[in-house]
């Protein structure tokens, strides 16, 4: 597929062009709705650790089941000294999000595509308000997110490729919001991990930003009316939703937020889908509340990671305080 203009700075595949492997799928093997044993109000387990990259100011590594990403923070460092550089009273924040070529079902190229740019700008919005940028004039802070593995929207699309001609409308309906859910989970992870890395870099912030994502589902086509556990209009709110919708449910909308728990502020809000008003309560409020709850849950992990790191640094400082005199003497 990638037989476009060759990238002169990289090794290119054979000029014949290559295509992603296509699988013959029989209708028997279609494990579409893999039910997770996770209640809808619970988020997946988060692994978050900071300070793994020694050569940058701050870094973090986050893992939420299939999603694996690494964040590094460069700076604050001075802006390049040139006549074209404008004076910056506040630090200039840049955010970059890049998927590894092997992070998704369909191989991604090295050049940034639109979804990566989109994630980058949303991450910028989530973080820029939390950083005390006025403390770092004439400098820049770079946040780089590398996504190594993700649960992406293409997971099942690729395998049924052979039957695309007769892909039913039901399948299309299922696919509504699939990309948003996949990107939403990635973005929430990016926000959480990036603020952990910023904290690791020692950059002053008003509060840590944690990411949260929630989706709302309804019963599919009213045929299997088993929405007994939902109070308002058979809606199912799922925090940290999987890409594949729960069995028999159709997605309505997804909400991603960047949330500062200590200040109760939302720094980034992204809702996509269909939402209305019912029973006097706006559905949007409920969905945002769910996302906030998810963000609060991940904030707990964020706090623990920050605490762990502080303990490590303090312990290391105490250990080296005794050993300092043993090093090579460098004076005359």
């Amino acid at each position, binding site marked *: *597929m990638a037989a476009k203009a*060759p*990238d*002169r*700075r*990289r*090794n*290119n*595949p*054979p*000029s*014949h*062009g*290559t*295509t*992603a*492997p*296509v*699988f*013959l*799928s029989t209708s028997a*093997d279609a494990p579409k709705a893999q039910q997770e044993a996770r209640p809808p109000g619970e988020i997946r387990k988060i692994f978050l650790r900071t300070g*793994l*990259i*020694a*050569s*940058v100011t701050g*870094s973090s590594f986050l893992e939420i089941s*299939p999603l*694996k990403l*690494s*964040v*590094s923070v460069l700076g604050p460092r001075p802006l390049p000294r040139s006549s074209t550089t404008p004076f910056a009273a506040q630090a200039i924040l840049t955010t*970059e999000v*890049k998927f*590894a*070529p*092997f*992070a*998704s079902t369909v*191989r991604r190229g*090295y050049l940034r595509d639109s979804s990566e740019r989109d994630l980058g700008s949303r991450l910028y919005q989530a973080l820029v308000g939390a950083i005390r940028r006025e403390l770092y004039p004439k400098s820049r802070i*770079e946040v*780089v997110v*590398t996504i*190594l*593995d*993700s*649960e*992406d929207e293409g997971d099942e699309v690729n*395998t049924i490729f*052979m039957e695309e001609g007769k892909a039913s409308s039901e399948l299309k309906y299922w696919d509504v919001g699939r990309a948003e859910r996949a990107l939403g989970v990635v973005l929430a992870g990016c926000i959480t991990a990036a603020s952990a890395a910023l904290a690791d870099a020692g950059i002053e912030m008003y509060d840590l930003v944690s990411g949260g994502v929630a989706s709302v589902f309804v019963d599919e086509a009213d045929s299997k009316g088993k929405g007994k556990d939902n109070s308002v209009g058979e809606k199912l709110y799922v925090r940290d939703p999987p890409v594949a919708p729960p069995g028999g449910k159709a997605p309505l909308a997804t909400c991603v937020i960047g949330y500062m728990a200590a200040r109760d502020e939302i720094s980034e809000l992204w809702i996509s889908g269909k939402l209305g008003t019912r029973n006097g309560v706006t559905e949007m409020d409920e969905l945002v509340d769910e996302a906030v709850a998810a963000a609060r849950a991940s904030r707990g992990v964020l706090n623990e990671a920050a605490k762990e790191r502080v303990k490590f640094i303090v312990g290391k400082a105490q250990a080296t305080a005794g050993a*300092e005199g*043993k*090093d*090579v*003497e*460098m*004076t*005359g």
Partner: protein
Amino acid sequence: MTSPTSPVLQPRGDSGAPLTFSTSLFRHISPSLYLQRHLLRKPPTRPNNRQPSQHRDLTLTTNSLGHAHGSAVVRAGDTAVVCGVRGEILTLLPGDDTSIFESYNHLSTSATHSYSSRSSGGAGWGELITPNVEISTGCSKKYPLGPPGALAQTLSDQLRELISASKLVELTSLRIYDQDADREAAQKIKGYWSIYVDILCISLDGNILDASWYAIVAALASAKLPLATWNQNEERIVCHKSLHHPVMLRSCLPFITTFAIVPVLGLPGNGTVDESVQTANIMILNDPDSYEEDEAVETLTILSTTVFTVETTQTPNVSSIKTRIERMEKIGGWKLGMSQLAQCIQLAAAKAAHYTETLLQEGSWSKQSNQTSASLRTF
């Protein structure tokens, strides 16, 4: 532990009291002297507390990524790389010449390669294995973000040449056949697996080449490609969902070892220090970190294969028998002599044994060995 005092470093204030710097400050303001003072200790110790001939411990994890066909994470000290291997299908059109895929010798030397491919508009057309290194991932302060810089381009090209020169992958496992029995030519090649080998540097602290190479070998050794065949009805190559086959590597795995040669002034040359240093004024550092790389005047990279005996007990115990050099690259001056080169080759063999041991412990190789148990004996 104190070094012999040197008169060079005695900036004195008016009071006559020596102006002292803290060690960490000294590290930054005079890196070469800092390194030298460390190496002049007895026994010589590098700032990272390693012996000159000591390499960093490696940790290896394979197949931790879901979407890649094979993957490896290698961590050596503060250098960490992730390698993902992914196969894509190259379908041959009628009349396509297969000779460029069937031979590694197609682009043998870098000179012809750069002449033929660069001028025709792309770096490295024509081979089935496409390695690329990405270091603009914020892995180090030194390398700016954006398109690959000089180092990334050099590394990608070096790795491509190493794969090519060492013939790492057996091309037999990359062919895709038409398996219809009623054809006169019993098995006809309909396409190839084209393998993308993408290496992302997560954390960079020197010697990324060794780490990348090891990640490539481990990822390829653990890779499983779906079984692909030509489908007559669809007239295209399709894959089986449940059947897989490994990427066959050559039976004697090559590994690379990189050394940095740093100048050390005032090294006693009369055999009092370490017998490995016979000429004064240089020291060979195995597996340099980025601080040492910055000070190096020469670098030496050895691609060697080592024949091992593997005692197939519970814990794999590898002992080397003999080493063969397949490629050597030395960049820099004239300081390294033959005797030191021999020393380096021995160290390379020792490191290759270490590599093999970790690869065996990880189990990625032994999985493959179920099919090819013969090759495990003496690889």
